[in-house]
Structure formats: structure tokens, C-alpha cells
């Protein structure tokens, strides 16, 4: 017997597209190496209006004990966001990116990123939860040099907004 009201409930996605919760706890192989460029750091610092000399002038950075210009605190997201596509673009996860907003962002730094760093990213899904029709996924991205030296860890919590109920 057909239950049109249930079918409608199932198809109107009142609770949003579910994410595959078996992704929680999974890690991915290291991404390809990203070479941090001096001009990229300068371009990023310029774009956020940051004028500190250590972001622009290698001499000023050397005076602080770094081999080249250092990156502003949020610069690593330009690398970790691209790296996390390894996770969010996996069709098996079921994430509808058109409904995704950035919920939380956190960084824990071992040291600032520096021009000349050759880094790889290792992604892990820390958590997948759901509440009120929304889905939440926290991706931890550990950024380390090719030699394995830790630089920074980034956590991004993405929110897949639930859809409105259709009548």
C-alpha cells in the first residue's frame, strides 16, 4: 500500500541529506607537497591589510629568527581548505556543498608558516554529528613539512544546512 505522506517526507529532505557517519575517525594519505611562496605570503598579507614587516621583508623575518617571510595566522587555511577537498569531494560522504557554510575554524601552531616550507597535509574526520536537520563535520588537517616536522593543525567545522520542508 502506498503511503504518499511518508514518501513525500522522505523526498522533501526535511532532515537534509545524511552524511556517511562511517567517515568519522578516518584519515587520508598525505596530500601532494605544497611549496609556500614568498610572493604568495605577501599577496595574502596585502589582501588582509597586514603590514607587519615580517610578512613582507625577509630581513625583518630573519631578525625574528626565521629563514624567510612568515605567514599571517590565517594563511594556512589557503592550503588546508584545498587539502580538505580530498574529504568533502568524496561522493560517498554525501556532502551537498551548495548547502555548506563554515561553522568553526581553529588553528594550533607549532610555529608560523614560512616561505620556502614544503608542506603536506593529512586530513582526518574528527566528528560527524546531526542536529535539527543540519549536519556537522569537523575535519582536522595536520600540516607538516615533507621531513615530518609539525607546523600547524587546522580544524574546520562545516555545516550542511537542512532544507526547508516543502508542502
Amino acid at each position, binding site marked *: 500500500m502506498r503511503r504518499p505522506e511518508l514518501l513525500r517526507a522522505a523526498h522533501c529532505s526535511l532532515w537534509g541529506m545524511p552524511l556517511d557517519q562511517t567517515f568519522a575517525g578516518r584519515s587520508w594519505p598525505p596530500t601532494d607537497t605544497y611549496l609556500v611562496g614568498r610572493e604568495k605570503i605577501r599577496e595574502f598579507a*596585502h*589582501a*588582509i*591589510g597586514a603590514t607587519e614587516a615580517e610578512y613582507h621583508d625577509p630581513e625583518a623575518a630573519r631578525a625574528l629568527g*626565521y629563514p624567510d617571510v612568515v605567514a*599571517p*595566522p590565517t594563511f594556512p587555511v*589557503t592550503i588546508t*581548505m584545498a587539502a580538505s577537498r580530498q574529504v568533502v569531494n568524496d561522493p560517498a560522504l554525501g556532502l551537498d556543498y551548495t548547502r555548506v557554510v563554515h561553522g568553526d575554524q581553529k588553528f594550533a*601552531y607549532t610555529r608560523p608558516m614560512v616561505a620556502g616550507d614544503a608542506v603536506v597535509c593529512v586530513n582526518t574526520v574528527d566528528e560527524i554529528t546531526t542536529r535539527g536537520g543540519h549536519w556537522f563535520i569537523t575535519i582536522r588537517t595536520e600540516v607538516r613539512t615533507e621531513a615530518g616536522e609539525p607546523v600547524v593543525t587546522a580544524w574546520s567545522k562545516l555545516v550542511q544546512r537542512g532544507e526547508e520542508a516543502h508542502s
Partner: protein
Amino acid sequence: MSESFEPQTYRVTRADLVRYAGASGDFNPIHWSERVATGVGLPGVIAHGMFTMALVGRAVTAWAGAGDAVKEFAVRFSRPVPVPDTDEGTEVVVTATVKEVTEDGDTRLALTATCNGDKVLSLAQALVGKR
């Protein structure tokens, strides 16, 4: 321990968002297309959340006196920052209060960012190392 810092005000225009899109690689059209932004139910073009976080980062490093002083930095994006297509754009105001000085001498700051009087971040904080 509740020392507060002088609020920092940052102007944000559409040109800033375009420049940030290019520098960061985040080309989501809700940050540059009015048509796309309103089409998904936003009031208009909004700033990248990470651009707002970057402005807060500027305030933190300015208070700390060094670009490499930040040990931890976390925010929750609680409200969008609409950026009108005008020469003036909008303003984001950042404040900080010292919450704690750790045994290691690091300072934990509680941070706020507001736009038109609305808090656009919550649970924002930074741990700043002693130099």
C-alpha cells in the same frame, strides 16, 4: 585579570573581498555576486568568514606586537558580514579581553567581532605566547 585592548576598526569593501578571493583561492560566488548571494537567501554579498577571522588575527598580532606570537586561534562564525556595493562598504570592530595568563606566561584573549552592532563571531579566542 580582565585587561581590555583598544577596539580595532576595519573597513571592508567589495574590492577587499575580490582581493581576498584571489589571494586565498576561495572563489565562492556568495562573496562577489549579488545574484548568487540573494539566490541562496543571503541579504546580499557577504564577506568570507576567513576574511573576518584574518582581520581579528590582525588585531591579535597588533596587540601581541609580533606576527608569530599566536599559538592558538579559534572562532565560530555566528552571523554573516554583509558588504554593500558602496565606496564605504561596511566596518568590522574587534575587541579583546585578557581571560587568563597561563603558567607558561601565555595570554588567553577572549575576542569579539561586530558588524552594525551584531556579533558576527562567537567563542572567539586566541592564545598568545610571551616573546
